[in-house]
């Protein structure tokens, strides 16, 4: 489990946390709960760059497609490949154990400024 105080969340329900110099981006538990059964995940190419707030992929539940937005800017180092064939892992696992992207970022501190820490985010959405 990732320490809650090191998780930061965007208003569009993506989270980011830092671990060993890399940044992990995923979907919040609230977002997953709202989406329901997830049946499709589309993720970006490794090596591509995305600015903060840019659309980097799509997640689709049975009911609808939702776009995914970068909570910080960065370069894609890795994507969570297992989600391509098993998108339902997002429903089955704890949200912080199933990241979507691993990125490198030069502006994390600045980009993080308008993100909420996890506890504030949870209060906001509930």
């Amino acid at each position: 489990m990732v320490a809650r105080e090191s998780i930061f969340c965007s208003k569009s329900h993506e989270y980011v946390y830092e671990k060993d110099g890399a940044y992990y981006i995923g979907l919040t538990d609230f977002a997953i709960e709202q989406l329901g059964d997830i049946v499709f995940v589309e993720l970006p190419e490794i090596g591509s760059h995305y600015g903060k707030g840019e659309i980097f992929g799509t997640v689709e539940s049975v009911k609808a497609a939702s776009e995914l937005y970068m909570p910080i800017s960065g370069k894609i180092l890795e994507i969570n490949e297992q989600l391509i064939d098993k998108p339902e892992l997002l429903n089955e696992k704890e949200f912080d154990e199933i990241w979507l992207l691993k990125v490198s970022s030069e502006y994390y501190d600045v980009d993080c400024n308008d993100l909420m820490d996890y506890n504030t985010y949870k209060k906001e959405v509930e």
Partner: protein
Amino acid sequence: MTKRTCLYNEHIKLNAKMVDFAGWEMPVQYTSIIEEHNNVRKNAGLFDVSHMGEIFISGKDALNFLQTLFPQDISGLELNKARYCQFTNTKGGIVDDLFVYKLKEEYYLLVVNASRLDDDYNWLKQNKSDFSVIIDNKSDIYSMIALQGPKAADILDSIGIKKENQPRTMYIKEYALAGEKAYISRTGYTGEDGFEIIIRNEKACELWNLLLDKGKQYKILPIGLGARDTLRLEAAMSLYGNELNETTSPIEASLVWSIDKNKKENYIGKDIIQNQLEHGVKRKLIAFKMLDRAIARHEYEIYSKNEKAGYVTSGGFAPFLGANIGLGYVDTDKNLKIDDTIQVMVRNKLYNAQITTKNFIKKHNRGN
């Protein structure tokens, strides 16, 4: 203000996620759409469909009046038999699709879509002209519960309606349920065997809980509107507002099977529909299965050989089939046939799909 069905509190107790649907606060799911969907295919499910409308038509001209409203000929409809119909407008478009049940001579029950109830009621009054009929909208006093799935007949049996007394497929019967008169028809919107029960509001909760309780041994689950939609799509059934609307005709909507081409009586839109039957239509509803990894959704564009050919009316993941499927209109001048490859534009990229028959799933559990 949104309306609530009599079963609202039961849904809350069952932890349902509630959404607004056609002005009603309805359960969209209880646990998971996929789990609920598959349970209806394998066991049984219970749906609150009380938002649907029940309009009774009676009077000495009931049959003659109804005959003016749709391309179906119901003059030969057997007593207690159901018929799937579409109210058509002067342009041949569909005002609503509905089930017509003949309860007695000159006494019919119409079950209509919640989203269209007010329009339907007005449509009926508007077209009543000199017919001697009573148009009685009883939607506010009746609740409707659908029991669907291969175990539906066993469950109905377990609450005292023995299999040998149950209505046959596409028939309706009157029963005393919870001490109250109720109608049970063997119809549904899932592609499974099952029943739709129309009962007075004050007895709805008792019946709902009785069915859930006795149904436990048959693994019954309450089912929300989310799975209702995926079930009907997987059964390739049209949804008013998606496949059907006031500008789509029954011919375009591939509902020719449901109409009577040689109906003698005049009905609203007959000239257009006859003309379409003889000379064809410009677009037609097709079913497709995605070949590439992508999900088609409502209003996405359909392409054929890099040219726009139509649009998706419904699309999504089909849980029992485990595939991404859809329905949509395509231009008939593209001459598309079953098994042809088309493309669907998903987020500015084209993905391959294949036109299929409307039998995504075999009706594997039909009743007797």
